[in-house]
């Protein structure tokens, strides 16, 4: 059964603004998640420089033995990436949906400060619905 382990959203400076943990294994505390997000931001940027082809926009998929990491970067520099079970399908589509939810429920909230951690209830609610609707089952917490 394919499942999502965790979801990260990083702002354009590399700071973590949203972290949701869906899996029971590999759960991280706040500091670790912040560190990991910054690390990923740097790696993503470096990969653009290292790429042998021109016009590379950074890492989109990282495949390891025990997990896959799908990353989506918007043209404004916001990165959304999800860590999931290997060979999970439809993650790109899910990332696009999450990006749309971000633009709707986070950016349109006038009390949300740009680049700050996301504390929007509507976003959480709709995110859960989107993840369940895509029929990507969640591992029990």
């Amino acid at each position, binding site marked *: 059964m394919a499942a999502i382990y965790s979801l990260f959203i990083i702002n354009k400076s590399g700071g973590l603004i949203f972290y949701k943990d869906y899996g029971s294994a590999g759960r991280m505390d706040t500091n670790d998640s912040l560190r990991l997000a910054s690390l990923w931001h740097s790696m993503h940027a470096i990969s653009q420089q290292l790429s042998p082809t021109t016009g590379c926009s950074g890492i989109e998929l990282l495949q390891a033995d025990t997990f896959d990491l799908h990353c989506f970067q918007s043209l*404004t520099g916001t990165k959304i990436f999800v860590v999931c079970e290997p060979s999970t399908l439809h993650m790109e589509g899910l990332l696009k949906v999450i990006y749309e939810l971000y633009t709707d429920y986070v950016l349109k909230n006038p009390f949300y400060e*740009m680049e700050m951690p996301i504390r929007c209830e509507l976003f959480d609610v709709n995110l859960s619905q989107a993840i369940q609707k895509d029929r990507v089952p969640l591992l029990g917490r």
Partner: protein
Amino acid sequence: MAPLAPKTGDPLFANVERVNAELFTLTYGAIVRQLLADLEEVEEVNKQLDLMGYNIGVRLIDEFLAKSNVSRCVDFKETADIIAKVGFKMFLGVTATVTNWNAEGTTCSLVLEDNPLVDFVELPDTCQGLHYCNILSGVLRGALEMRRGGEALLYRRIRGGVPRTGGSGHGQWRPRPSLHPRPCLWPTPLPAVLAAEAGGRRMRRRTGVNED
């Protein structure tokens, strides 16, 4: 699975939720009136409108990118086209025309023939110099700044006053120098100079003479 970016904004406009046009126009008019009452100085109001537009623009750009699926624009001409055809259509329901290119292709004018913000609006004599639609230039400034990573000073004048004659202004778009206060590995600053102008055909100065 990236679908082709729409060449026009019509399908996008059909899909987004819409609001009553009069309500929109009246709300904007109320905002401008209130700003005039609070700030009294026309220049201050212009600045506030631009600032408000800027704050809108930095948020709007992500929605535009998410919903319209446009890819990175190759050059400035394409950027102006996309803004005029897709951007304005998606959010205001009207398209702008891109005209008045200079020789190097670094400045242009975006002309809105049918601007919903200025429906029914007549500027009184006491408000000379008011850039009624300045919020739009702020929106453009905010949106484009997020993409290019450079700060832009977009100054634009509304084609007010006597219709079809009289000053149509131009603007200056200056890229921020290479020192970026926020450390981020992001694209190079915009090297071009952009001028944008939008005019509402219905902006008229009340002259006190019966205009028929």
